[in-house]
């Protein structure tokens, strides 16, 4: 029964390659087909989520029936089950948005790349094999390159080129890291690596881990490896930007967390953590400061997203279970909020023809629902209580205090102050500046936005059930011993 979970990978893959055929039959069927696929994917993901959280056991899928470490396995534990659902739901919402937001032809290519992006992120989260992780990372990256350049403007190509060059360097070194790990351990299975980690030559392991982190950090937008990100976010089609911020970067962050903790037995591990904390801190500081005087709202949100990602990385690198859980919670909340905000900002761009700040003057009167959505999102990110991000920031603070990183509290505080500055300027511009004709807002998109707003507020008021889920997901990453136990390794005993 649980083998059906492999449809999570298979469905978008076959869906993507069915699109060229479908296009021959009927061109107008492509976008509805996209909705159908993401809808089914959401259904499967919901089923998987339910299955994993009810039984409390991960779903393990072995490719071709070979048991790991010979065969490649998918490991859908508590974290993967949660984020596969996030990915599917976000993708579904963004396909709906795509009807409105994507007007450039060829739409069939867009749909195909869209599914591949979703597939790549799903794969990165659910794979149990480090080389397979590389493959899915590249699938994600290559479809992302193509999607960024999709609008075919000069700027879009420029942004794509930047990502290609930086992503190429990153993935090359990731592969070097894989080679080093494989060379010293002779295995690529993550559980097996974790099992053998204490045997490995410390220098090689440290170098391997550092290179893996380096490669993933490029995708996970850690400063200063994130220089591609603001450009890419700004130029990508609006639904794609939302997907980047909501789950593509989260998949890389997850991979980073997973790789770190499976190699936690390695000597010099804590110095890698320290390095990551430094990078994450710099990411927060530089990201927030860069957002401060942006005239392009989409770019401002991109920098804000980068800063939040830095916070998540710091949480992952605290090295405690509460830190990881808080990070996962922040990932989840940030996914909701940023999906909402990029959706809203994209919709403004579609209706009013741009994302420069002057387009937002009088938005409160022109597009009230969209303006409301942006406002709620902004308030949530600043960290006002009774909105979801407050709780994850609070948990991050508690985790940092527990891990004796008192200064991190100052970091979160400073970041929130800066966020407050630029978001309040934006809110003021939206509601109290300028006038304009009312634009008829699409009721479907309004519904989507209000749904996300409702989710933000529900989590804000009732964080408990969500926090329970996050703790399980966090422990899935942190608790490596359990991870090893869960994977049925063939014929190897420690």
């Amino acid at each position, binding site marked *: 029964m649980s083998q059906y979970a492999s449809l999570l990978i298979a469905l978008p893959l076959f869906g993507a390659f069915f699109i060229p055929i479908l296009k021959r039959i009927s061109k107008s069927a492509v976008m509805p087909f996209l909705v159908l696929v993401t809808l089914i994917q959401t259904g499967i993901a919901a089923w998987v989520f339910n299955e994993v959280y009810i039984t409390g056991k991960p779903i393990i899928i072995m490719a071709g029936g070979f048991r790991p470490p010979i065969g490649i396995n998918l490991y859908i534990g508590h974290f993967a089950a949660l984020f596969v659902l996030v990915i599917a739901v976000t993708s579904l919402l963004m396909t709906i948005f795509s009807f409105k937001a994507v007007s450039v032809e060829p739409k069939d290519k867009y749909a195909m790349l869209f599914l591949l992006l979703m597939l790549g992120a799903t794969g990165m989260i659910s794979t149990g094999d480090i080389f397979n992780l590389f493959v899915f990372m590249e699938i994600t990256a290559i479809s992302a390159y193509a999607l960024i350049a999709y609008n075919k403007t000069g700027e879009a190509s420029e942004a794509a*080129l930047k990502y290609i060059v930086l992503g190429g*360097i990153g993935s090359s070194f990731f592969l070097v890291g894989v080679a080093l790990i*494989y060379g010293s351990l002779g295995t690529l299975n993550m559980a097996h690596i974790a099992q053998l980690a204490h045997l490995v030559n410390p220098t090689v392991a440290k170098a391997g881990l550092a290179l893996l982190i380096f490669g993933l950090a490029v995708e996970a937008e850690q400063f200063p490896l994130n220089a591609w990100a603001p450009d890419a976010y700004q130029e990508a089609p609006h639904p794609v930007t939302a997907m980047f911020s909501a789950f593509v970067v989260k998949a890389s962050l997850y991979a980073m967390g997973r790789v770190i903790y499976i190699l936690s037995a390695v000597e010099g591990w804590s110095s890698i953590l320290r390095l990551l904390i430094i990078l994450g801190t710099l990411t927060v500081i530089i990201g927030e400061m860069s957002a401060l005087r942006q005239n392009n709202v989409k770019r401002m949100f991109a920098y804000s997203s980068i800063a939040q990602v830095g916070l998540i990385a710091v949480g992952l690198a605290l090295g405690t279970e509460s830190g990881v859980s808080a990070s996962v919670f922040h990932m989840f909340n940030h996914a909701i909020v940023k999906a909402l905000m990029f959706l809203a900002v994209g919709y403004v761009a579609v209706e009013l023809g741009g994302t420069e700040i002057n387009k937002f003057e009088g938005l409160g009167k022109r597009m009230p629902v969209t303006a409301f959505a942006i406002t709620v999102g902004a308030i949530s990110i600043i960290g006002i209580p009774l909105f979801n991000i407050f709780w994850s920031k609070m948990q991050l603070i508690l985790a940092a205090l527990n891990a004796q990183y008192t200064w991190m509290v100052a970091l979160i505080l400073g970041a929130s102050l800066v966020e407050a500055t630029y978001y309040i300027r934006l809110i003021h511009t939206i509601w109290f500046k300028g006038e304009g004709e009312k634009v008829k807002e699409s009721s479907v998109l309004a519904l989507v936005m209000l749904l996300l707003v409702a989710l933000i507020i529900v989590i804000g008021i009732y964080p408990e059930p969500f926090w329970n889920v996050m703790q399980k997901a966090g422990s899935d990453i942190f608790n490596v011993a359990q991870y090893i136990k869960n994977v049925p390794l063939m014929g190897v005993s420690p």
Partner: protein
Amino acid sequence: MNPYYFASIALILIGLYAILAKRNVLKMLVGLSIMETGVNLLLISVGYVSGRSAPILSEGITPDRAVDPIPQALVLTAIVIGVATTAMALSVVINLYEKYKTLNVEEIRRLRG
């Protein structure tokens, strides 16, 4: 130490040099490809055992006589990925050249700040 390691590291560094120093976008992409080749060579040499044959099960060649097959499988995958990346990059560059009329990276910087 295995000489292939040095060769592969040298290739990676040459590729990196091209990316860091060459102003022409195409040359940077060539550098990227060289780097990927270096990585692939490294992967292969990780599994290479001197004196053994290719991991093809045929007469007279048992698993203990062949080199480690997994890196080779990995490299095949990596090469495919590399090709895809390069193709993607080149198509982007074509579009860039049409829009910017230049291949100099110093002039391709409208997006900044």
